[in-house]
């Protein structure tokens, strides 16, 4: 499977997961209000989690089947991310280089995102899912740097 397709699928699943978690975060806030006597009911929107489960299941099935067709073992097909499947020493070399770049990117992104979390008390009044969004930016940065680094080397 093409690297750009795998990256897009990862971003879609991450985005959907974020959407589902924001919904649950809202529900948890409502529950907190309910327990402290400020709310009457707790409403959970099940649509995001159902869509996320459906899309993730389909993508997972297609990717696993694809890897099994390429003679990968069940353990590798189920647990190893597709972008880390290496067939020879050159591909291992490329992955190692991309992992190094992703690690460096995390060294810069982590403190910035931790600093962004300090705005949570201000922004949470208008957007309660702000901490989820900030946390999701970490894997997004990691995946994006890994993908861009590999793409540049493969050109």
């Amino acid at each position: 499977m093409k690297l750009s397709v795998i990256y897009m699928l990862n971003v879609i699943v991450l985005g959907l997961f974020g959407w589902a978690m924001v919904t649950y975060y809202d529900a948890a806030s409502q529950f907190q209000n309910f327990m402290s006597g400020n709310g009457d009911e707790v409403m959970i929107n099940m649509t995001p989690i159902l869509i996320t489960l459906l899309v993730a299941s389909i993508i997972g099935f297609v990717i696993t089947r694809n890897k099994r067709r390429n003679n990968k073992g069940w353990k590798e097909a189920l647990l190893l991310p597709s972008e880390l499947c290496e067939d020879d020493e050159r591909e291992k070399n490329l992955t190692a280089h991309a992992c190094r770049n992703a690690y460096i990117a995390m060294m810069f992104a982590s403190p910035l995102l931790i600093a962004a979390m300090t705005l949570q008390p201000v922004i949470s009044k208008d957007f309660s899912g702000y901490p989820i969004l900030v946390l999701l930016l970490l894997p997004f940065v990691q995946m994006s740097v890994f993908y861009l680094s590999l793409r540049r080397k493969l050109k």
Partner: protein
Amino acid sequence: MLKNRIRELRARFQLTQQQLASKVDVTRQTIAAVEKGEYVPSLLLAMKICREFDMAMEEVFQLQEESE
């Protein structure tokens, strides 16, 4: 820089990139990258390639100074 004669030797031995790749257990893209000088192979891969052509290492790979 590491220069090599893999393309020339492949032609002489009538091997495609895919055939050589299968013999030395790598992908076709890796053979292409080695031929173009974009990837420096490991000692193990270089020795496997030399064995396929039945040649000494220095006959297949030559170290070229950057200024040349």
